[in-house]
């Protein structure tokens, strides 16, 4: 047994190797991405692994592998489970023979997400078991054991860590990595795998009949426990259970919920040993609703009476405050600390030399008063540049653009979408816009990588998850095949040429596509591509502020209001082309 200091996601990946897993799929999404990143970079692999095109594709591939009797893992972030919801709901009916673990990482406080949905609700909805770790060690152990659990129950298991598990670190006890000897075999059984009405009605009944056995088994396995120490009970789950443990008085009972569905009779018996209950969980009142059902007349505190917030994430001081309000703790041991006010913010920004900034600049110049739907990726940061008017979910830039264009709204519509997002769920929207005759422009920001989540390859990159060469898709050909006649590829660093193409697009009717092609600066740097840096000639600089407004972190303003270029410059040269005085020039090597 080995002890290591690991990121939660690294520990989860290790748990899968100990199981061992045979088949891995997923689509990157914070905070889930590192699990596949760790698994795909293992030197020796006895499993198949892929980055899939989207979460629905990923889950269907993994489900098929589990139908062949091997162990499959499918990873995604919480909102990815919406995309995969179609196969998810019916996978509970068909069940699995090999273990299938669906990791859906939740993001309370939406650190890097468009919403705060709770994957436990999906498990409830689909009637699938769900494991909810409260520490990194538990996450490691749970995912390792989730595969045999899935096989035993014959059901996919949803594994739901949150950001504070995935992106926390801790000392973790690890087991040995084993290589798999399982052989895939698909045993034909149409009654199980062909969900025509006659079959699915029976499958639904069987799924319902299974539920009470599932609940009993989860209690037996020790995922849900109650330690009776007094008349007051705190029920907690996930990372909130860790916060409770840290400050819990000795005389208060604690119930920890690590798995769903919860067995009602067990819950009722444990709750009824107390006089009052406080339920502390992040996001949805999943446990609280059940506790209220079994508590009878006993007072229950939680979200529904305003003790615990529905939104955001919990923390030690917040949990302590809740415990004080519920009379479990005398006073909050954490001081009221106030941040220093009015400091200039430092939000994440597009990198120096990022193609998106150049493209956004050109778009704003040519399409001055347009509406700018956008999408999910690094380029959402274009919000700071005033060129992102909407984002809702993956692929929705194109559909929102066509909806606005078709609504009768008189302004031009030009939307932006990244290459990976376009391939994920953008294509049907493009086809729809052409088919239904929308007037709009689509800009595909093509940096050939899924950058924001940590530079995962996609079908446009020319590499698989394991680094094998693949045939890159042709974005041009896809767009033409959708019926787009105006498809132009530009280099956004060539700002003048790019603006010329944008003007052409603006003057035409129908759906126009512009593909802005340039490597992500981070991948370019890693690939050893070096461009000379630029500098400002202070004598020529007129302090007009044009380059400052471009918003590149490599350009700073001096005390004399002039511009100066710092070490972050990656040599894209866009600012040199923008400077009306011609004051920005290539740095001369000394």
């Amino acid at each position, binding site marked *: 047994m080995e*002890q*290591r*200091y690991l990121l939660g996601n690294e520990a989860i990946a290790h748990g899968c190797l100990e199981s061992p897993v045979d088949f891995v799929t997923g689509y990157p999404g*914070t*905070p889930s*991405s*590192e699990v596949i990143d760790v698994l795909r970079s293992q030197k020796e692999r006895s499993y198949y692994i892929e980055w899939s095109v989207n979460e629905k594709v990923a889950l269907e591939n993994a489900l098929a592998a589990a139908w062949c009797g091997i162990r499959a893992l499918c990873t995604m972030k919480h909102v990815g489970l919406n995309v995969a919801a179609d196969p998810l709901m019916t996978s509970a009916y068909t069940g699995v023979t090999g273990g299938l673990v669906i990791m859906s990482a939740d993001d309370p406080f939406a*650190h*890097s997400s468009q919403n705060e949905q709770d994957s436990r609700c999906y498990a409830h909805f689909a009637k699938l078991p769900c494991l909810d770790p409260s*520490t990194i060690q538990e996450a490691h152990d749970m995912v390792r054991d989730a595969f045999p659990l899935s096989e035993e129950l014959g059901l996919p298991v949803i594994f739901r860590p949150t950001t*504070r598990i995935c*992106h*926390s*670190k*801790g*000392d973790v006890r690890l087991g040995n990595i084993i290589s798999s000897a399982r052989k895939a075999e698909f045993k034909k059984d149409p009654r199980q795998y062909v969900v025509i009405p006659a079959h699915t009605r029976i499958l639904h009944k069987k799924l319902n009949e299974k539920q009470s056995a599932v609940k009993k088994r989860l209690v037996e396995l020790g995922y849900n426990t109650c330690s009776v120490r007094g008349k007051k009970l705190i029920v907690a789950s996930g*990372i909130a259970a*860790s*916060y409770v*443990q*840290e*400050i819990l008085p000795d005389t208060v009972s604690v119930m920890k919920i690590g798995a769903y569905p919860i067995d009602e009779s067990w819950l009722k018996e444990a709750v009824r040993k107390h006089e009052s209950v406080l339920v502390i969980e992040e996001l949805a009142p999943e446990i609280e609703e059940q506790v209220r059902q079994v508590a009878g007349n006993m007072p229950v505190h939680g979200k529904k009476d305003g003790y615990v917030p529905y939104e955001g994430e919990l*923390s*030690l*001081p917040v949990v302590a405050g809740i415990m004080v309000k519920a009379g479990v703790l005398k006073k909050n*041991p*954490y*001081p*009221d*600390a*106030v*941040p*220093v006010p009015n*400091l*200039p*913010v*430092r*939000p*994440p*920004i*597009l*990198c120096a030399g990022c193609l998106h900034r150049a493209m956004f600049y050109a778009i704003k110049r040519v399409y001055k008063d347009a509406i700018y739907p956008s999408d999910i990726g*690094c380029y*959402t*940061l274009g919000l*700071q540049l005033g060129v992102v008017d909407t984002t809702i979910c993956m692929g929705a830039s194109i559909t929102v653009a066509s909806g606005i264009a078709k609504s009768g709204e008189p302004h031009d519509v030009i939307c932006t979408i990244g290459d990976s997002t376009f391939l994920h769920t953008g294509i049907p929207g493009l086809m729809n816009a052409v088919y239904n005759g929308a007037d709009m422009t689509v800009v595909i920001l093509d940096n050939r990588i899924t950058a*924001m*989540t*940590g530079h995962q390859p996609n079908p446009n990159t020319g590499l698989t998850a394991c680094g094998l060469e693949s045939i890159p898709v042709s974005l041009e050909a896809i767009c033409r095949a959708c019926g787009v006649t105006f498809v132009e590829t530009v280099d956004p660093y060539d700002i003048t040429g790019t603006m010329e193409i944008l003007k052409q697009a603006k003057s035409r009717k129908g759906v126009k596509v512009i593909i802005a092609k340039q490597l992500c600066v981070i991948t370019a740097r890693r690939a050893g591509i070096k461009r000379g840096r630029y500098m400002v000639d202070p004598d020529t600089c007129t302090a007009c502020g044009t380059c*400052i*407004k471009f*918003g*590149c*972190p490599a*350009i*700073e*303003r001096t005390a004399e209001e002039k511009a100066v270029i710092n070490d972050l410059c990656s040599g894209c040269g866009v600012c040199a082309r923008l400077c009306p005085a011609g004051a920005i020039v290539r740095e001369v090597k000394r």
Partner: protein
Amino acid sequence: MKKAGFDILIVGIGGQGTILASNILGEACLIEKRHVQGAETHGMAQRGGSVESHIRIDGKYGPLIAQGTADLLISFDLLEALRYSHYLKQDGTIVTNSHLVLPTSVFMQNLEAPREDAIIGSLKKHRLCLLDAEQIARDAGNPLSVNVVMLGAASRLMPLKPESLLEAVRRSVPKKTIDVNVKAFEAGQAAGNTCT
């Protein structure tokens, strides 16, 4: 309430190497066979934004340090030291790089640029150790090892043996850069011993 462990908050700007610094501290805890918990910023927030790494030595429960309770704040940027100073407990210590990178928001939104002397003035409410980590890193042979210089400078304030930390540096950095990082750590240590 009496705190069990020792809580360190490392802050900086995405790309300055806070994650490696946290890995080194975690490794040092493993060497001394102590529990450790941590939390850090990943994903979108890393793109040049303000980032934080929590490390809780002897931590057994949650990974997050509560505001007003950190024992030690290590900052790779002067402005970020001030931004996170409310995390520090009353008698805690700040070890910070004296270098300041102005956020792009200052130029884009025409905000008033914070003045270094004013920031230092505010930080002096706490015990403060200020050092030019860029210069120390450059002198030690690698301008990119600011993070390791800062750990070295703060090392005497941590409940970890210097030899554990040094071994953790060796284990955590890329093999080719071990020598230069060991030098950076030692140079930071020397600077930390003399800073007030």
